[in-house]
């Protein structure tokens, strides 16, 4: 067991535990903060594997922008301190959610475990290589995704504005 193995296992464990806490906690803001920890764990895994550009972009975009936006939305609506009792759900729904999560995990493990090799090995990927892949091979999916997001954004704006009033009230 090398030190890379250890570091990878530690980051992975951090991500998994924080992810579990994020979905099981009864406090919404805590869930968002556990999500930050989980994302940092994933970024740590990527760093161990040598994909530092991806890791840093993950932190910059998800922790720096997406989670800040999530926290903003939570604070703007309802984020009580202490457990959220308004949105309590019956036991059978919790069990069903747990089963669905476990089934997805089992499926992913069944698909990915046979692919796992031996020791964790570090591959230093140059930033240029990622850029070439992203803007060469994968440029069309990348652009299509951007257009999709833009369309979603404009649609959200249109929905939130509502139909325009024909006659302006004096």
């Amino acid at each position, binding site marked *: 067991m090398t030190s890379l193995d250890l570091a990878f296992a530690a980051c992975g464990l951090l991500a998994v535990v924080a992810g579990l806490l994020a979905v099981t906690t009864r406090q919404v803001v805590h869930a968002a*903060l556990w999500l930050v920890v989980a994302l940092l764990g994933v970024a740590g895994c990527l760093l161990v594997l040598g994909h530092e*550009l991806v890791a840093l972009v993950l932190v*910059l975009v998800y922790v*720096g922008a997406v989670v*800040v936006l999530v*926290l903003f939305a939570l*604070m703007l609506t309802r984020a009580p301190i202490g457990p959220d009792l308004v949105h309590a759900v019956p036991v059978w729904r919790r069990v069903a959610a747990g089963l669905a999560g476990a089934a997805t995990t089992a499926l992913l493990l069944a698909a990915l475990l046979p692919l796992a090799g031996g020791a964790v090995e570090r591959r230093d990927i140059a930033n240029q290589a990622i850029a070439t892949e992203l803007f060469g091979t994968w440029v069309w999916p990348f652009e299509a995704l951007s257009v999709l997001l833009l369309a979603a954004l404009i649609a959200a704006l249109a929905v939130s504005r509502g139909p325009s009033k024909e006659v302006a009230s004096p």
Partner: protein
Amino acid sequence: MSVLEVVVRSVAVLAAFLVFPLLVGQTEHKVMAHMQGRLGPMYAGGFHGWAQLVADGVKFAQKEDITPRAADRTIFRIAPFVALVPYLLAMAALPLQRGVVAVDVPASALLVLAATSVGALGTLMAGWASANKYALLGALRSAAQLVSYELPLVLAVASACLAAGTLRLSGVVEAWSPWWLLWQLPGAIVFLVAALAELQRPPFDMPIADAELVMGPWTEYTGLRFAFFLLAEYAGIVVFSLLFAVLYLGGWRGPLDDHIGWVWTLLKGFVIAILVIWFRVAWPRMREDQLQRMAWLFLLPLALIQLGLTGIGVVMTR
């Protein structure tokens, strides 16, 4: 890298992290005072009140550490550290001279940006966990501001990195030439304004706005935890000033830069820090809608134009 070297580098970064923010804070006391026709601190330490911030630190350490009863205790307690520690990481990646940097990573520009964006979470956590309406309002304003200014900031840094052809900060300095002062000028302006907003310094201190929100997200904090927030603010000024010097002013480039390059880096950073202080004295606080308007209608287009300009320049010269 031996264990000893790691220890020496860590201690050096920690020392810089503890000394530079105090230096900037003391400069702020004195420069702001003289701009307003006052003397500023004059007694602590004897000579022109040089030990004022040390005395402040002792005062903060003596104060009672209060956690409000209604607060979310854990988050309330760890928020100052979340705000402070990322700046320590960011400072470790800033190069001072050719080969003089605590950790030279291939994408250090991104590392600094990512670290500072994590630090912003501390303010949000503090505002929410305080269970105080002023703190919550401050945190809301802070979140709105951070989301809108993150984009121009990243675009401005991306433009400088694009011009240099590398994400490594020391590589950016190597590629720098005096022409950049003109070529990257719009990007530099965007970076400076966005960095001020990211640090929530006046005129972008709407989240703290002491006249309407008491102290914003920091309202409930006392003693050392409050001092940590202040330290984080000044460490942020140091990090962003040095980053500006490295990206747009050529870092250590200057006469005799193989020997005294670190002096040039620090000097350029210090000039920017004084500029940041000057902005605080010169401009009144901006309103929330003015803030958003400025970010989306002025800074973002300017950053995109700069990105296009940089792209054209890079393609033409290579």
